[in-house]
């Protein structure tokens, strides 16, 4: 149980080590690591998806641990054992949210997993709640990096959103993805200079570029994906749910990552109000939240002004939606945000919703499965299905459930 022996990511390691990063959102994470590059961190996204990933996960973490932990740790272990990386010159980066959910413990499970075979590999915690602060560490989160991360998330969200709105309708297959890659490269470079700060110009260009893709009328069944953050976004975890929906002739609608960032930022202020205490962190978080919200508003305005694509959900609006069903005090895991996203999707015409979660996810008992009934009462046409993911659940079963939902979705059209 002693943690004294664990390896630290020293400043010298910035020169020698490759930092492996699990790939949760293919669009966003590429941007995030390019933010880190000018600061001397050499990061690499892990995209491995072989069976060995699951096997390593099963071998190295308690099998009842949630699926995301199993996959992320499995991916790291597979990489370290594969010979592709020199364990003496590799570090691992993992996010830590710091809430009352099991996710805050992933990093410890990871350390446990590598302790015996790779004690020399340092594990870095990426978090914004001050966990694991260490002056000796070569990993220092500065306000500048944090700010750039925010921009990366904003750009990533916009790219994800517009490409999701184009891909199902493109006349020439693959055109959207080609453009997406082009923009990803361009934005990656933008972090080398101050170019990323020119948001209005960049937003406009992105919107215009994507709008140029020749497309058919936007009339497919829209299917919203909400849920536990890793399973919702990661194709590895959700068995390529987006691709499956595309192949079924649907338009996947995926809420933005910034919503989750803002949900985290606002929760301290919410707790302060609910539990009647006020301290520095409540005030700072309140200010931070307002800043991020202003950035979101700017993006929403840009999308609305352009007038072709659907903008992301206004976060203050989401909060109001949540209040109708559940308290914002529910702040473990994705908390009230899942409920709010389901309501907001139903409200904006995306009445078909898939709620994804790891098998046995505790917060989702409350905020997802527990709230479906009230959402359906409010939106009688809402067609919500919950899908659990774990290493044993097969694709057939998951796809069957999605198909069942789609059969429901198409019914009104047929009558």
């Amino acid at each position, binding site marked *: *149980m*002693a*943690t004294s022996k664990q390896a630290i990511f020293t400043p010298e390691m910035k020169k020698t080590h490759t930092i492996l990063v699990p790939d949760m959102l293919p669009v966003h994470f590429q941007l995030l690591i390019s933010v880190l590059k000018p600061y001397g961190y050499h990061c690499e996204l892990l995209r491995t998806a072989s*069976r060995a990933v699951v096997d390593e996960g*099963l071998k*190295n973490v*308690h*099998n*009842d*641990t949630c699926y995301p932990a199993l996959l992320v740790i499995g991916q790291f272990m597979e990489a370290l054992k594969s010979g592709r990386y020199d364990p003496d010159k590799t570090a691992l980066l993992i996010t830590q949210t710091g*809430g*009352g*959910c*099991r996710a*805050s*413990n992933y990093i*410890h*499970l990871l350390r*446990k997993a590598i302790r*015996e075979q790779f004690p020399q590999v340092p594990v870095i915690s990426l978090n914004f709640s001050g966990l694991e602060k260490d002056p000796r560490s070569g990993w220092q989160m500065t306000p500048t990096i944090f700010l750039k991360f925010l921009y990366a998330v904003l750009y990533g969200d916009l790219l994800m959103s517009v490409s999701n709105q184009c891909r199902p309708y493109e006349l020439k297959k693959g055109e959207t993805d080609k453009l997406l890659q082009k923009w990803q490269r361009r934005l990656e470079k933008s972090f080398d200079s101050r170019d990323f700060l020119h948001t209005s110009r960049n937003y406009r260009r992105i919107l215009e570029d994507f709008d140029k893709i020749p497309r058919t009328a936007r009339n497919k069944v829209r299917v919203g994906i909400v849920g536990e953050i890793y399973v919702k976004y990661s194709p590895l975890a959700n068995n390529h749910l987006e691709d499956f929906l595309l192949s079924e002739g649907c338009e996947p609608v995926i809420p933005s990552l910034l919503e989750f960032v803002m949900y985290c930022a606002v929760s301290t202020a919410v707790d302060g109000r*609910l*539990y*009647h*205490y006020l301290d520095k962190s409540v005030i700072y978080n309140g200010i931070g939240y307002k800043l991020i919200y202003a950035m979101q508003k700017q993006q929403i305005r840009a999308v609305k002004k352009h007038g072709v694509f659907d903008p992301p959900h206004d976060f203050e609006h989401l909060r109001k939606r949540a209040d109708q*069903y*559940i*308290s914002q*005090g529910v*702040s*473990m895991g994705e908390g009230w945000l899942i409920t709010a996203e389901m309501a907001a999707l139903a409200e904006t015409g995306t009445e078909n919703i898939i709620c994804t979660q790891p*098998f*046995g996810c*505790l917060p*989702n*008992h*409350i905020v997802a*499965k*527990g*709230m*479906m*009934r*009230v959402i*359906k009462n409010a939106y*009688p046409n809402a067609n919500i299905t919950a899908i*659990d993911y*774990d*290493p*044993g*659940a*097969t*694709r*057939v*079963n998951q*796809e*069957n*459930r999605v*198909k*069942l939902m789609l*059969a*429901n979705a198409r019914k009104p059209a047929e009558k």
Partner: protein
Amino acid sequence: MSQPVYSLGIDVGSTTVKTVVIDTEHNILSQCYQRHFSRVRETVTEQIAALQKQFPDARFRICITGSAGLGLAQSAGIAFVQEVHAAFLAVKADYPKADVVIELGGEDAKMIFLTGGVEQRMNGSCAGGTGAFIDQMATLLGITADELDRLSLKAEKRYPIASRCGVFAKSDIQPLLNQGAKREDVAASIFQAVVDQTVSGLAQGRTIEGTVLFLGGPLSFLKGLRQAFVRTLKLDSDHAVFPENAPVFVAYGCAMFAEQSVEVSTLAEAMDKLEHAKTGGNTVTGKPLFASRAEYEQFIERHKAHDLPFADLRTETGGCWLGIDAGSTTTKLVLITDRGELLYQYYAANRGQPLDRIVEQLKKIFAEMNPDLHIRGSAVTGYGEDFIRAGLGIDYGIVETVAHFKAASYFCPDVDFIMDIGGQDIKCFKIRNHSIDSIMLNEACSSGCGSFIQSFAQAMGYEIAEFSQLGLFAEHPVDLGSRCTVFMNSSVKQAQKDGASVEDISAGLSGSIIKNAVYKVIRAKSVEELGKNIVVQGGTFLNDAVLRSFEMELGRDVIRPAISGLMGAFGAALYAKEHAPAQSTTITKEQIEAFTYTTRSAKCGGCTAHCALNIVTFPGGGRFISGNRCERGAGKSKAASAPSIYEWKYERILRCTDKKPAGVPCATVGLPLALAYYEQMPFWTELFTRLGFAVKRSRESDRDVYYQGQHTIPSDTVCYPAKLAHGHIEDLLEQRVDFIFWPCMSYNVDEGENDNHFNCPVVAYYPELLRANNLRLTKRNFITPYMDLNHKKGVYRALKEALKEYRYTGDLREAIEAAYAAQADYRREMAEEAQRIINEARASGRKIIVLAGRPYHIDKEINHGIHKLIASLGMAVVSEDAVAALGHVGKLGVLNQWTYHARLYRAAQYVTTQPDMQLVQLVSFGCGIDAVTTDEVRTILEQSGKLYTQLKIDEINNLGAAKIRLRSLVAAMEG
């Protein structure tokens, strides 16, 4: 001549293929229902070929549906419709008045709500409560599903059986059978379990009412199941509809879909498409088990080295020793000489009647035995131990773990790891310093053991021996993953869809069982961890494919004695020989000829638990009682039991609501006896009575409380303590309290020495879920303020706001102060009581167990009386919260951020400082947080040389597995 155009619906289910041909008037022209034994494509083409003969001139609109039909439809390029959608169409056309449709298939269960918001639901990744489940249970009883049905109609009583998954149900049914419960009653209980599973799993909060349509094979063939549904849902004959074409109903709907939306083609074209469908794709395959015949021969030769010599029963004279292993599905028996030679052996399925099997064998032995050979002693082990011992006068009853260790050391004196895979369970023991160091048993959800392969073999139409042989030389064994058996069913389905052969699947299943054992039960990280000398045993290792898979997984050779399946019995015989009784009480030749017994059931009146008892009476007045949770029902007095704090805590919490407010109450508040209230009752009762409220609590938990709230449970996989909360809310509503009070708390009390002090998400926010899913709850009658007990000021403000509608008489600030004091009193009294128990135990030389769980584990419906069981074994029981303050932990290997769980760590550390204490951790099934805590508690204990014992609990109230662990713990503490 114009060709008629018909519509053909093909329903490819997990176990059957159904076809229906309809004309434009929707008359059924032809229908067929056939088991496919996993030969999906062949069965479909056979049926189409038959149709070709029947309708040589017709043209068809063809569509496929069904859980196993998707892949086939895609690869063949034939139209597909989702099966619930198909059923929906047919129901709309033929039964427009139906409100709800319930369809049970081979491996899935579905429910469609038609009125009041159309909703379609399917069972999740779990196949519990389906046709496959019924088949599996019938197999367990050694009969067919039809016979099961006939038996059920003659039932007199029903036992509670866990319905969520086949594996759990098995572990409920097995002890019932072993202890002599009537097969008729068990059969009816199985059907009831299916009904409960369907109702709770699929209705998820919606009430099933109005006209209900029942579809699918099991519901049309099994009368007993129908009756159970009709009775449970309280339907009359007008509202329970069983269509004549129920088995093929979905195919019928599929034909309707085809009529609306599929182009006309011919059967010949369809045949052609099916035959050319390409298969394969997603399935991952592994290495063959044996590269060549020669390698196999060599393997066989190596394992032959561990044979036992034989002696002849007819010629041997002197003394011999009898060992019996009454396992869950099989009965094993050996007779050995003084020199350890084998005189007689028996290994067979007990078909639910272990005692009858053993009596038959003993009669045989006595008949053949040399008159000068005498049974000098005997011992029995296994699930049926108590029963067999009581019936046949066996000298010793020993715990299975001890028996297996004895036997393994006989073959390998230096054994340091034993792995036993039986029909129902996996048992692994680590041996250190020639004594059992740690025991790992398979938990409720991973029992992918021998009986699983067996039922799979049968499903595919093979004998088990033949089936496993097939896997030996499979070229591309399928990788089926390592998850619970129920999930494995669907992995196999997928593999079949992808065209895997029976050989590949057989080999894959052998590999899966091993993976389950190694990664789920042992959770080994490296082979070195298991030790050098590994002995494997249990009937399942007689299967060469399983044995080979294990050696391959480990990358080293292991020892498998030739009597692998008889090791428990052999160990028992060795034990009898070692402990040689002066005068054996074992049943004699004369006695066995006259041996009979009778069974009847009764309810225990010893305490309020009212356990359902089975009383078996043996000749000469000997009685054996099973089903009792404590020793009281068995006729023993309570005096033999050691003291336990669980009763004290429970009574103390119940007593809180005896308090009355001074004067006329301003209103009545209801407090549910659930989750955090099991700790905070003193706080809230004090607060409310001080303020002038009358306080009522919900009644004590039992099975009925669970059923009462079952219809409002939205998530089937949440823990049992949370599920019970729904019933407590219903009970309070029945009591007509003015409002129910249940605060939401992200944070629990900060007790120090931790990283944070959260509640788990379920405890923190369950009121939110309750309000959203119980229609009778409103903002007015269910008050759920957010508060943090660490901030008194905040508590004051939150309560002031929450109770503003009520004109309470007491002063809120004073009441809060008193509430904090009352809670502190409770904690102090509890610590004192623990100290008293510890001192008393030490004075009488008893060992002490810290039974560590959560506050709500004192609920007797949750703990199933495990504390009583421990006390009855002579050990005193204290709880984690009562001793946590005495322990101290520094920085842990995990984020120590939940209050309840922080207590576990500190209690564990405290135990390491007390030589006469051990810790047993209670874990509720579905508690995700315990995936983190269990490993850490284990680490804390094992670093200091303590044993780690974990008991997983669920709605199952069978204590069989818990008993094995606890008795092994006792044996280890003594040894």
